[in-house]
């Protein structure tokens, strides 16, 4: 079970990183989140597995929906090319991955870790302050995200004016091109008649 899930998670992660379209990237990330949630449930962390199934994919979907509805569709558009420094990124990421693998393979003590108490018990009795901090962090993040990304009435007016100006310029450019094409056609016909 672990090996099947691990392979699927790695494939989903590769899809999230290598997919050319933003839509495919978001789908791969959601698939990866769901697979990680299933892995956590298989590992015995039931509550956490359910949270992992819902929370990250939900946040990503929420961001995508808010961006689409608030006039930020261009952010979700496809930018297919890679950054110019992708070979350096590949070398650094591969190096850190190998370092992590080597460290864990040589230093892991199989008796480390723990089991027994449920997550709710641990959160309630063992780490109540951390739980409070995490809850506050989540609330502040949502409020901060909405505040940072909000658009005021004046910004909407400016956006509309900029869009209208762009359309006007586009129409003028098209008219000029048509006029030039018609003139070239007329001249060509006149030259042939002579």
């Amino acid at each position: 079970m672990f090996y099947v899930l691990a392979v699927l998670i790695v494939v989903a992660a590769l899809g999230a990183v290598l997919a050319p379209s933003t839509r495919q990237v978001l789908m791969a990330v959601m698939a990866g989140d769901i697979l990680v949630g299933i892995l956590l449930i298989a590992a015995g962390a039931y509550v956490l597995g359910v949270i992992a199934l819902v929370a990250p994919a939900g946040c990503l979907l929420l961001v995508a929906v808010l961006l689409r509805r608030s006039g930020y569709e261009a952010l979700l558009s496809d930018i297919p090319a890679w950054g110019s420094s992708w070979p350096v990124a590949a070398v650094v990421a591969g190096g850190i991955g190998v370092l992590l693998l080597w460290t864990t393979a040589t230093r892991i003590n199989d008796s480390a870790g723990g089991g027994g108490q449920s997550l709710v018990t641990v959160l309630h009795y063992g780490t109540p302050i951390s739980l409070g901090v995490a809850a506050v962090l989540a609330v502040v993040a949502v409020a901060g995200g909405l505040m940072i990304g909000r658009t005021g009435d004046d910004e909407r007016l400016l956006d509309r004016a900029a869009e209208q100006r762009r359309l006007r310029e586009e129409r003028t450019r098209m008219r000029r091109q048509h006029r030039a094409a018609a003139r070239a056609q007329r001249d060509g016909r006149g030259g042939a008649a002579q």
Partner: protein
Amino acid sequence: MNVGPAHYAALSAILFAIGLFGVASRRSTMAALASLSVLFSAPVVAAVGFAESGHGSLPRLGDALALFTLSALCAELVVGGAVAALLWRRSDTADLDEMTEVDG
């Protein structure tokens, strides 16, 4: 073959490397955020794997740690999306290579 902490650690390392590569190499803001999400899932897998591989003598603190990591991931996604929207308004592009206003 038994699945031990080393297996979870290996999977976590692979996920971390893939996510790091995506964050450093993708040009689209949303794709970089998605890669960051992959990167963040690495410590979650490691923490839960270590907690699961124990012998029941200690509370599952690894699960609690993974939960806090997940809340940080959600916060990062929401705030990151908002910052991406703000940068797009300023620079009129979603291409990270063209967002020169935030260069140091």
